[in-house]
């Protein structure tokens, strides 16, 4: 089976600029423009979040599109599905009733309540209109990558060889 792609984050490169968060909200706006998007109502919302692990150590985190998604098992309207081929976990907004059972069981806390837009659950949809998610394309330090787990691990291993000195304690 081909490993599905998702968004991976290299914590060593994240400078907490929050460009990913902005790019996410803009991509999910109607105008797709940062400034005009500010005027839209309901206001465009981000699905990616910069979290701090320690002071000055951060990472961008969105839906992990879990192999066995707890949200899908908890959803009582059956509106969450996982695509067998792409691995993407999706919420069908037309069937979401805003019961928040998905939020209740998400191990990463990255599903939001879209209370200004019809009370639906909101999370990363991997930008269906784009080849690569907006946060990944916008990241100025190439912290984010859209790839398979194996590709990510291989790339990180190589990078560690090149920059070994920067990882010494």
């Amino acid at each position: 089976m081909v490993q599905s792609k998702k968004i991976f984050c290299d914590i060593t490169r994240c400078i907490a600029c929050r460009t990913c968060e902005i790019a996410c909200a803009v991509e999910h706006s109607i105008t797709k423009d940062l400034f005009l998007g500010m005027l839209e109502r309901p206001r465009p919302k981000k699905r990616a979040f910069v979290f701090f692990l320690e002071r000055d150590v951060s990472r961008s985190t969105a839906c992990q599109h879990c192999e066995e998604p707890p949200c899908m098992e908890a959803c009582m309207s059956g509106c969450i599905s996982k695509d067998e081929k792409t691995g993407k976990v999706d919420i069908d907004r037309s069937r979401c009733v805003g019961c928040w059972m998905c939020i209740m069981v998400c191990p990463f806390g990255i599903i939001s309540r879209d209370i200004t837009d019809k009370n639906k659950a909101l999370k990363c949809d991997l930008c269906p209109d784009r080849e690569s998610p907006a946060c990944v394309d916008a990241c100025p330090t190439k912290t984010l990558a859209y790839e398979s787990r194996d590709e990510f691990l291989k790339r990180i291993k190589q990078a560690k060889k090149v920059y070994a000195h920067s990882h010494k304690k």
Partner: protein
Amino acid sequence: MPTHIKNNIYAIIGNSAAGLAAIESIRRVDQSSRIVNISNQPQRPYSRCLLSYYLAGQYDKDILWIRPEDYYKKYDTEVLLNTAVTGADIKNKTLEISGKKKISFDKLLIATGASAKFLNIKGADKKGVFVLRTLEDADGILRMLPNVKNACILGGGLIGLRAAYALKRRGVAVHVIVKSEHIFSQMLDAEAADIMRQHLEVNGIEISTGLEAAEISGKDSVDGVILDDGNRLDCQLIIIGKGVAANLGIVKGQVKADMGILADERLETDRKDIYAAGDAAQAYDVLEEKNNVNQIWPAAIRQGKIAGLNMAGEEIKYEGSYGTNSLDFFDLAVMSFGVVKPKGGGFEELIALDAKRRLYRKIVVKGERIVGGVLINDVERHGILLHLALQKIDISDIKDILADEYFDFGKVIPLIKRQTNLFIRPEYKDTCVTYSPLY
């Protein structure tokens, strides 16, 4: 996954969460055997949990159908709707269904669910007294609504208050009568219950606690309810929300049962090849640390899924169940899990309250592990806490920030590094591959 040609007959009684999840997981590993699904419901599968949303008029009936019309064809399953199982011979592996027909099986899943508890008081048989458990109940209430100005809800739990909310949205004046001192006495602690009560009252739902209905008055139809303090309330509709009880009738005396059918680590009962899942089952509760019935949707799906895989010959261990729930009334969300009102020693409660913004977080800790919690309003991080509890993570390093408003998944990542083996999901590891803490 290797597929062997099997020649089993799987009988599954019940076509709600647990039954459906079992059908789907069996078909993942066994495409050749027969599956027979029997349900006493006349309709195709629907979600009971959404009945209050339908009753509220927030959504059309269409929202209830949780599986497509061609579902049974897609999963190559024979379905017997509107069919009661009238007898079960566990020893000879046969079921008797309405019309005296017999069905033999190799493996049986009892996913018969639960029924609403009724109230045995004088007048409870009058027209206008309902429970809210089936589509027929909801439609019956809806048919009455044009003639209802006042409704009484008996019970201050999840179903009672969801019903109250639904009727209020339909423009009915609602009065909720609660026997306990607090609403949500199963799901919330007193502090959280009071915040929710105030919110419901501000939004026009009347609530009386410490009272019970003594008698329902009226000729053929309900015209009021007499309370145990002698007062009388006028109402044309009564909904009883006194919880549910597992449907054990079919197998009574043949499999071991307590409040539900006792299911082991594989969701098998004490009789070989007989499995139980969902509201009818009782399994080990990892947060309460005892056998417990947890009659909630997520537990039913998980149990159905694992029971199905084990029936089809896999060896999958069930992680155990737990209690958790999520509610939303007039845009105020509340969630809880596990132990919310600790009894006995050894517990620590981490509490943060901001009454003005109606923010409340309580986390119950025992032996440096989370065993329960309650969140109001800012609920987005509930799942993080729940999974820390389920995986029995030592949280002593982050205890001082757990109840903090700014707590998020980032603060969990150092724990994943330190207690790697306890974090089971591969996605946890994905999040910290590039994290090299300086200690």
